[in-house]
């Protein structure tokens, strides 16, 4: 059995990628299934999707814990969670990055294909939806499915849902990634530790009491503890503030959904980019165009 785990962000198409890979295997006459991780997915939040491929009927229905192939759709995920957890020693990995495989530190030293799928997706699809581009690189590194059946699967999936033209564009992206992917050994120095989380049970919070704010096992708990969740890594564009132009109307401060715009004593503002998700509302409401959104995230 060949197991694949996809790590991406909501909106990048990780689920669609898993389904398309499974379909490509089915086209080659094998058994396959694909499904997402069920959680509170929000656009930009880390998500997972899984696929299994076998020559016989697949009876296991669990999540994939020890993948043969790891697909990382967003490079920044490597820093915020142990993506290579459980990856087999003889496994393979595909990473969407502009770096070469030797520069990538996954935590397990495996054969790794890297491809700048963001650039390919922006060129072909005009949007940072990298799923089809990354599938081209998957076809390159494994002999699991051929690029031919991958293209057929993309045509079936995307043609049915979005029309023929969309399918053609996506096939183009997959082909480009197949050509451009570079293969090599990645590094394995990063420790793959799972952050232990303290979850209080009924003994910790007796009936009639509530959990008070504090720190447990180095992790903030209780009221206000969610601010340790640095959502700035979701960002695809970054605000640039021109203090000279600012008229101190505070519209951006009021309308920022994250509360990452801080108000100074003189009513000028400053950004806490640890939390900025790059929605661009501040730039849109600014009456004097003192805020520009610049392409590029937290990396």
């Amino acid at each position, binding site marked *: 059995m060949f197991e694949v785990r996809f790590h991406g962000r909501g*909106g990048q*198409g990780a689920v*669609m990628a898993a389904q398309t890979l499974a379909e490509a295997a089915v086209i080659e006459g094998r058994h396959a299934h694909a499904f997402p991780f069920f959680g*509170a997915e*929000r*656009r*930009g*939040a880390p998500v997972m999707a899984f696929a299994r491929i076998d020559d016989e009927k697949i009876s296991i229905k669990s999540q994939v814990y020890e993948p043969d192939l790891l697909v990382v759709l967003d490079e920044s995920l490597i820093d915020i969670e142990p993506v290579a957890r459980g990856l087999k020693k003889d496994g393979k990995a595909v990473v969407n990055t502009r770096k070469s495989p030797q520069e990538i530190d996954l935590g397990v030293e495996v054969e790794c294909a890297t491809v700048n799928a963001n650039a390919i997706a922006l060129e072909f*699809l*005009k*949007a940072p*939806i990298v799923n089809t581009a990354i599938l081209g690189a998957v076809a390159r590194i494994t002999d699991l499915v051929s690029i031919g059946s991958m293209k057929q699967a993309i045509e079936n999936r*995307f043609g049915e849902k*979005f*029309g023929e*033209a*969309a399918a053609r*564009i*996506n096939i183009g992206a997959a082909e480009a990634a197949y050509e451009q992917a570079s293969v090599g050994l990645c590094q394995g120095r990063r420790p793959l530790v799972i952050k232990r989380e303290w*979850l*209080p049970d009924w003994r910790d919070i007796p009936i009639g009491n*509530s*959990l008070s*704010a504090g720190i447990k096992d180095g992790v*903030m*708990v*209780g*009221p*206000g*503890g*969610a*601010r*340790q*969740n*640095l*959502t700035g890594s979701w960002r695809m564009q970054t605000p640039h503030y021109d203090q000279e132009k600012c008229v101190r109307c*505070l*519209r951006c*401060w*009021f*309308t*920022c*959904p*994250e*509360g*990452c715009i801080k*108000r100074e004593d003189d*009513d000028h503002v400053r950004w*806490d980019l*640890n*939390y900025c*998700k*790059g*929605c*661009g*509302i501040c*730039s*849109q*409401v600014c009456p004097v165009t003192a805020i520009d*959104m610049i392409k590029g995230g937290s990396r």
Partner: protein
Amino acid sequence: MSTIKDMPRNDPFTSGHGACAGCGMAVAVKNIMRILGENTTVYVPASCLIVISAMYPTTNFRTPYLYTAFENTGAVITGIRAAQRRRGLSSTVVGLAGDGGTFDIGLQALSGAAERNEDVLYVCLDNEGYMNTGIQRSGATPFGAWTTTSPVGNVVKGKREFKKDLMAIIAAHDPPYAASLSIAHFNDFVKKVEKAKNKKGFRFLHVMTPCVPGWRSDPSMTVEISRLAVETGMWTLFEIEEGSSRTTYRPQTMLPVTDYLKLQGRFRHMENDDIAKLQDWLCRKWYIHYGHEAEQPVCAVFEKRKPMRTPQEEQLHFI
């Protein structure tokens, strides 16, 4: 407190929540909490807000925070207030419910609390659908909108019913204070929340909160959509105080509803006769709200061009 400059600087609703980029509901909740201050008890029923702000064992609220079931916001905030009276405590008790938990599922508990005139603040964060569970239609979904349970087919395109007039239901309970808010009318927002905070008895606030994935809109346009909703008559800013209704903001001229519709993918399929029907409904609504003080509303003549869509845009839209 009458302008945004007078608002406190600290945030009882902290950063680090999991809402989508450009979430209108996060804007509304953050500012309501700023104005209400730390001496507040928050109740949230099942909604997006519980998912984004309360990952066990943390919350984004620096205030006491409670969550039970979907349908009982009115009942639970009543209970919290009763317990506070019994213990001799006092804080602003606020229930932050979505439109599903207010218009449909929570209506009986809301009606009960309003009828008993409990000393609580009820906020309806109206994103016009069950967005948390993946965009299903609710009583708040406007005419013609696409949702997964009002799909676009060959014959029936989108929702066929008009939005429920919740404020009329609330007004029928004769509450001490009820108001509708928009996140794009800042000072109006601040004044109304401040007023609601200081009144005694049952207070109701109805906030329009655009939803980026559910409305298929651009994240940066959240506030602009709220503004256009008021300018086109899709949303009206008024308050009901001790039985008398007062419009707090009147647009200069009525913009054609297409200005509002074209920013949102959920209305993309709408054709001329549906738009005409919606515009006609809006003109009647406009008369009801602004009739006495307004001259003839400009129920604009419009022409809808079939939008040209490229496949890339289409894919961007449906993922």
